[in-house]
Every structure is written in C-alpha cells, then in structure tokens.
C-alpha cells in the first residue's frame, strides 16, 4: 500500500469529523418543513380555501404583498397558506412511501442477499419486473385504477421504492456476507438469524439509512409529478397541484408566475435539502468503511 493511497483515505477522513454547515442548514430546513407539516392546522395561517377578493385591487390573482406574502391565485386564495398546507401531503407521502420501501425492500434484499439460492432468484426477478416499468408510468397506471387517498398513493410510491431499495440492500448484504468476519461468526457456531441481525444488519443498515433521505427525495418528487399531472391524492392541497394550477395556461404563468414559483421554491429547497443531507450522510458513513 502506498502512502499516496493512505493519504487519499485521510483526506476523506476529514469529511467524517464534521458533516459541515451545509448539512445542518439542510437539516434545519427539513425540521422546519416537518414542523409545518405537522402543525399547519394549529398555525395562525389564513384559510387555504377562502377567497380574499379585494375590489380595490381589481381581479385576482394579486401579486405578493404584506397581506398575501406569496400573492394569491386566480380565485384570490392565499398562496402562502396553500404552499404551507401542501407540505403535509408531500412529506407524508414521501415519508411513508420510503418507510414501506425500506421495511419490505430492505428485508427482502437482506434475506435474499444472505441466503441466495432460490429466494434470491425469485426476489431478483420480481425486482427486475418492477424495474422494467419506468416508475412514473407504473405510478400512473396504478393510481389511475384506485381511489387516490393519502394511504393508497403512499402505498403505490412505496411499492415503487421496494425494488431499488431491495436491490441496494441485497448488493450490500452480498458484499458483507462474503467478508471473513461473517465466516468467522459462522464458525463460532452462530445461527443464521444471529449473523443477519448482529453481523450483517449493523453494516448494511447504517449506509442504507443514509440512503433513506435520498429515497425520500425521490418519493417527494414522484408525488409532486403525480399531483402535477392530477393523479395524486384527490382531496387536499399538494405542491405539484399548486404548480400545475399556476402554469396550466401560459397566460397565468406570464401574468402571475408567483402562483407556481413559490411552491416550486419550497419543493426545490426540500428536495435539495434531502439530497444534500443524504449525500453528506452517505459519504460520512462510506468513509469509515474506507479507512479500514
């Protein structure tokens, strides 16, 4: 081993010591969004459905002002309030989808990666079948056939995340179950369940959990895409739906870009934070592995 290579490892070790200011900024934003999502009904916000017609300003939409920070839409509804309300569905769907994906996909992936054999062949084939659909196409197909509630949309997006999560979990498990410490555990007489829980899971779960944030970003974007196309949760306010409303007609977009742009900004910042924090976490955990 050359010192040159060691040196590269050490460089990475710096990143490990601290996650950095950017990471905490992102975590802060996500915390804020989470707070908003949970407590919107309790916050002193304008009603998201009420029409704030103001005869002195002529016909809505009204531009951003003190009264309406993000302006109003064509029906004079407050965009700020609606955008905050939109956080709820986006984050709930994103979170529950990725949780479902991790629980099911992660379990199946670890089991098939550890035992291999027919379990692995079957699950791998199921994963490949699921991955043979472009995810938005499969999401559209499924959501079009069902009653679109918060639960069902989450389930559909959860289903979509099973295969990618499962494949990653399987690959990570394969990589570790060939390591000598697993062989060592087996030869001290450890049972399979013990090996999976004590030896494999700690190694697989930590890097995988850093992927959870990245996965949640994907789910939030997917939900946004569905609601933009009018195929997400039927009742309720979503960021995708708000953006669609503001950009449906070129005239609206030209005259009142704020209707779309504020929800876009919120969505963008949230996805950016998820991606950035997830990426930092990933390098944070990868590095420990690499310095070994």
């Amino acid at each position, binding site marked *: 081993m050359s010192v040159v*290579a060691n040196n590269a490892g050490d460089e990475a070790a710096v990143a490990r010591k601290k996650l950095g200011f950017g990471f905490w900024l992102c975590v802060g934003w996500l915390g804020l969004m989470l707070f908003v999502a949970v407590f919107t009904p309790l916050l002193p916000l304008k009603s998201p459905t009420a029409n704030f017609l103001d005869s002195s300003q002529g016909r809505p939409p009204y531009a951003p002002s003190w009264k309406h920070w993000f302006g109003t839409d064509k029906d004079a509804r407050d965009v700020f309030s609606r955008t905050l309300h939109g956080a709820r569905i986006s984050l709930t769907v994103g979170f529950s989808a990725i949780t479902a994906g991790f629980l099911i996909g992660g379990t199946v992936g670890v089991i098939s990666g550890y035992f291999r054999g027919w379990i692995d062949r079957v699950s791998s084939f199921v994963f490949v079948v699921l991955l043979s*659909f472009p995810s938005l196409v*499969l999401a559209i197909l499924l959501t079009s056939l069902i009653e679109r509630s918060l639960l069902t949309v989450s389930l559909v997006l959860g289903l979509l995340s099973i295969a990618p999560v499962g494949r990653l979990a399987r690959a990570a498990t394969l990589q570790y179950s060939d390591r000598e410490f697993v062989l060592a555990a087996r030869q001290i007489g450890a049972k399979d369940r013990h090996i999976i829980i004590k030896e494999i899971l700690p190694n697989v779960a930590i890097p995988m959990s850093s992927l959870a944030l990245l996965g949640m970003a994907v789910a939030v974007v997917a939900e946004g895409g569905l609601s933009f196309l009018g195929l997400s949760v039927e009742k309720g306010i979503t960021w995708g739906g708000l953006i669609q409303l503001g950009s449906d007609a070129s005239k609206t*977009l030209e005259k009142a870009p704020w209707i779309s742009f504020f929800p876009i900004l919120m969505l963008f910042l949230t996805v950016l934070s998820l*991606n950035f924090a997830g990426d930092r976490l990933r390098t944070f955990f990868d590095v420990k592995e690499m310095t070994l």
Partner: protein
Amino acid sequence: MRYYVQRVALAILLLLAVSMLTFGALNVLGDPLFNILGPVAGDVNNPDSIKMIEVAKREFSLDRPLPVRYALWLSDFVRGDFGVTFSSTGQPPVSGVISERLPRTVTLVAMAQMFAILISIPWALITASRAGKVSDRISTLNAFFLVAMPNFALAVILKYVFSIKLGWMPLTFVADDPWRSRLFQMILPALTIGLPVAAVYQRLLRTDIITTLQQDFILLARTKGLSRTRILLVHALRPSLFSFITVVGLNTGALIGGSIVSETVFRIPGIGSTLVESVLRNDFPVVLAIVMIVASSFVIINLLVDFAYTLIDPRVRR
C-alpha cells in the same frame, strides 16, 4: 454466445411478466368493464352506452375467464392490434393513435438522452481532472441544484424564462410544421428532460473517473510520460464508462417518465401526454397499449445496454 441467449430468454420472460402485471392490474384492481369504459359502464339505460358495453365485452371477451382473456389480448397485441379507443366517438383503433404519436416521443427521448450524454461526459472529464478544486466544487453544487429540481418544475421555469420572458423558443408544438421547426420546438422540452439527467450522469461519471485515476495503471501511464489529456481520454475514460452505460440504460425509464411531464407542459401530442389524457378520460385500451409499449421498449433498451457493455469491457466477452 450462451450469455446472449440467456439474456434474450430473460428479456422475453420479463416482457411476459410485465404484460401479465399490466393486464392483471387493469382486470383485478376494480371492475374491468368500468376500467375500460369508465362511467359509461354503469349507464345501462342509455342505448349508446349499452352498445359500447357490448362492444367492450366482445372486444375484451369479458365473459371468458381471466387467463383466456389475457391470452387473447396478448396474441392481438403482438400482432399490433391494440383494440379501439373507447372514449372518443367512432372508436378509432388504438394503433392509429399510437403510430401517429410514438415517433414524437421517441424523438424527444432520444434528443434528451443525447443532450444528457453530450453534456455530461465533457463535464465529468473536466471536473474529475480538477477534483477538489474550487471549479469542481462549484460544479458539484450546480449538479446538486439540477438534480434537486423536479422536471415538471424545471419545465415550468424554462417555459417561463425562454418562451414567455425571452421569447427565444416557441410556446407550443405545431404538429403540422416542417420537421426542422418541429425539432427546434423540441429543444426546450428535451432540455427539461435531459438537464437533470445530465447532472445525474455527471456525478456518477465524475466519481468513477476519479476512482479510475487512482488506479495503478494510471500511474503506470504517467510513468510512460503521457500527457494528462491523453491519460484522461485514452486510459481513464473507457474503464470508467461501465456503470455510466448501465445507468444510461436504466435512466431511459426516467427519460420516458420525464417525457410524460414535458409533453404535458409543452403540449406535445406524444404518447406521454396521451397516457395522461387517457388515464384522466378512463380510456384504458390506450393506457394498456402505451404502458406495454413503454415497458417493452425499456426492457429491450436494457438488453441492448447489456450487450453494449460486452463491447466496452473485454473481460465480459466469452
């Protein structure tokens, strides 16, 4: 050889599974008649509806058991008979709608893929060779921004900036225009799809090139006295392309997904926007056909990518 045969067999198996899943979803989730006809299915007093119900039952052999229906539908499908669309009057064959719109989507996706590849490779090469420097960090941040921008939002922003405010690009797609102006009209929609994907490609390829640059054989190439550019292009690029190619293949799915959004925003009558319209109109023969076509082409593209892989990496050839 054995490898190719196995891969093709797997692809055929996959296509069967995909078609079963699609067909099954339409027939198991809810009432198939409703899935085909929408509200019309319940409207048993209207003579027009009754006629449609009868056509639908006949067309889809709804009185036969599910496996038989599947077999019948599949044999029609492989022969290019996708049934008739129900939601419009006159019930034109689905294949007509598709053959009119599919070429636009293919063009759009191909253009997007081309943009993504053409942007990402030089971008990755330049940033990887300056890894850690300020320019590299700025570019990494840019890539992050692009990746974090959902394509529907990017579509709205690009449309606002380039079509509405700057007026550089046409607002709408005109199907009757000559092909050159249609291509021009597709630039913005294709960029919408391609830009975030380019950022994904760049991040991946940059990492892989950096890993390759740390390999011993690059050091050996340096000791030969080769120039940096030559090392980068001749020695580092090709061994770094393996996962890039796989990801380019896998991302075709994301591009098709992107085309659904992009076609909707820029009002291009391709199969993506048709899919959404048909779903909203409950026109399921069209939905079924489009989902099948998209999934099949995706499977076939990945098969081709696997074969391309063997061209790049001599170690895989047997």
